[in-house]
């Protein structure tokens, strides 16, 4: 492969890009930052080794996930991808709590609705004379 068609990895590493370059299919010269990021976090030899451990048909996905992890480690040097996992777990817990509260409200409303359906006009059938209601029974005076 001539100098003008070197992959991003070989260009970064300043070496000749051979036809069987392991990194070339996943780190094209059009995205040099992608390999730079990966190299800084993992190192070219580690990435090569990790890709070679994976079947060829899955290497594209492996390279993408490695690049994703490297990108997030550059953005957040302390937590990297693990920061995203933590935030997602917290969001799941908060949403589960809200879901439980909402379902409890649904159950409460359903119970109230069923009670009202059983006694639709009960309040119309019962009337209290105003005087008797406010006067105590004679035995207590």
């Amino acid at each position, binding site marked *: 492969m001539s100098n003008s068609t070197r992959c991003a990895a070989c260009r970064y590493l300043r070496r000749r890009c051979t036809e069987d370059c392991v990194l070339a299919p996943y780190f094209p010269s059009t995205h040099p930052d992608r390999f730079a990021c990966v190299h800084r976090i993992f190192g070219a030899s580690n990435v090569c080794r990790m890709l070679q451990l994976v079947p060829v048909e899955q290497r594209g996905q492996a390279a993408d996930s490695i690049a994703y992890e490297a990108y997030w480690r550059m953005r957040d*040097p302390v937590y990297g991808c693990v920061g995203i996992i933590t935030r997602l777990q917290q969001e799941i817990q908060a*949403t589960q709590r809200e879901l439980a509260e*909402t379902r409890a409200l649904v159950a409460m409303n359903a119970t109230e*609705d069923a009670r009202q359906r059983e006694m639709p006009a009960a309040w119309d059938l019962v009337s209290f004379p105003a005087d008797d209601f406010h006067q105590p029974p004679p035995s207590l005076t």
Partner: protein
Amino acid sequence: MGGSSPCASCKLLRRRCTKGCIFAPFFPADEPHKFAIVHKVFGASNVSKMLQEIPFHQRADAASSLVYEASARMRDPVYGCVGAISYLQNQVSQLQMQLAIAQAEILCMQMQQGGALPSSQRPNTDEKPSPFANNSHLASLTRLMNFASSGAVTQEPLQREYIRA
């Protein structure tokens, strides 16, 4: 480290563990597997550079997250941590969908209750105020409809948009 045993990293790298060894506080000798994993995935020199660029009080967290990421990558050589992220994002989407359905259910029930009995004949004297103000009734329904049509519950592979030249 004087007469004491070398840390896990210096033991693995077969070198003298000095007093200022950057790995020693975070990779003790009694947990050799942690440094072994991190070294295999990231490489000792890369880990050393990363730790040196981080303030001292955050290095323990950084070391722990590196161990976590390296372990995930060893368990899943194709997706690593990203597999877990994808799974959790899917869980979040499903929970949000369930929440939207439950909220819409409350909305429908309250609208039905409001239509069945006029409010002046309601015997319930300790009725709680509705959790949804009138303006948010429409918002809840709209949210549910938008969520259902957005395809958010489908498992989408991670985009390649995160790094561009």
